[in-house]
């Protein structure tokens, strides 16, 4: 493909866009792993949400 005399500008524009999109995806994915790890760590230490604790027998699950 011939991008003409301004090929450099086109290539840099796409490179910057791909880099920014890549950083966004990496940030969101990395943050997800970090939060999941933090919740799992708390769970291991026995620190859980009340709704996640096992219910005594006879108590119904909320709707």
């Amino acid at each position: 493909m011939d991008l003409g005399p301004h090929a450099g500008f086109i290539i840099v524009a796409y490179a910057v866009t791909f880099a920014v999109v890549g950083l966004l995806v990496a940030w969101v994915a990395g943050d997800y792993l970090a939060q999941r790890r933090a919740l799992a760590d708390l769970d291991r230490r026995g620190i859980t949400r009340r709704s996640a604790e096992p219910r005594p027998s006879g108590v119904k699950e909320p709707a």
Partner: protein
Amino acid sequence: MALIDLANPTRFLALVERVLPWLIAATVLAFAIGLRGAYLAPDDYQQGATVKIMYIHVPNAWLSSFVWGVMSLAALGTLVWRHPLADVAAKCAAPLGAAFTFVALVTGSLWGRPMWGTYWVWDARLTSVLVLFLMYLGLIALWRTIDDPARAGRAAAILTLVGAVNLPIIKFSVDWWNTLHQPASVFRMGPPTIDPSLLVPLFVMTAAFSLLFVTLHLAAMRNEIMRRRVRTLLLTQAERA
């Protein structure tokens, strides 16, 4: 599922888990089709091959304003309806909007140098978009300054609604003032002024970037809900100790 059910973070998380794989697949597919279209599209008779920059510049420019619009709706959700997920939505949209605005500014400059002979001019469209970018950064800084998410959400909501004044200024700047930036050629009264051979890939790329935003936004909201759960658990634990 009624819309009000999504006010429950646990139900919202379950919905995100279900739709996210489909959204990721749709985004990848849309980018594959859009990039192929951009690659095969003919050169413009005036711009030559630099028209290919438009396939990334226009979608990002559109999203820069659209994301602030989403944040403004979320701000109303925080201040008026006190929806528990509204400030989560606003907080997670801000970095995405900043990134799209940054790409719009950089790709616009890279197009401007060969076409206008300059990377930058202080005309109304370029300046108002730069102001939008700075407002995004200000909003992100505000979220980081206030520790309590509820208080930060209310302050950010007010700033977001004040900043929404900039949206019509960006849109109509090319009509109200004499600018180097061309007037609207797609979203305008009357049909688009672009040939379909260039317009179709532009629409597909706009759809692809919009899907990317929805996907990343939902994923970032899921992360933020988990972060708040971690924070609440740690605070509760500290109170018990």
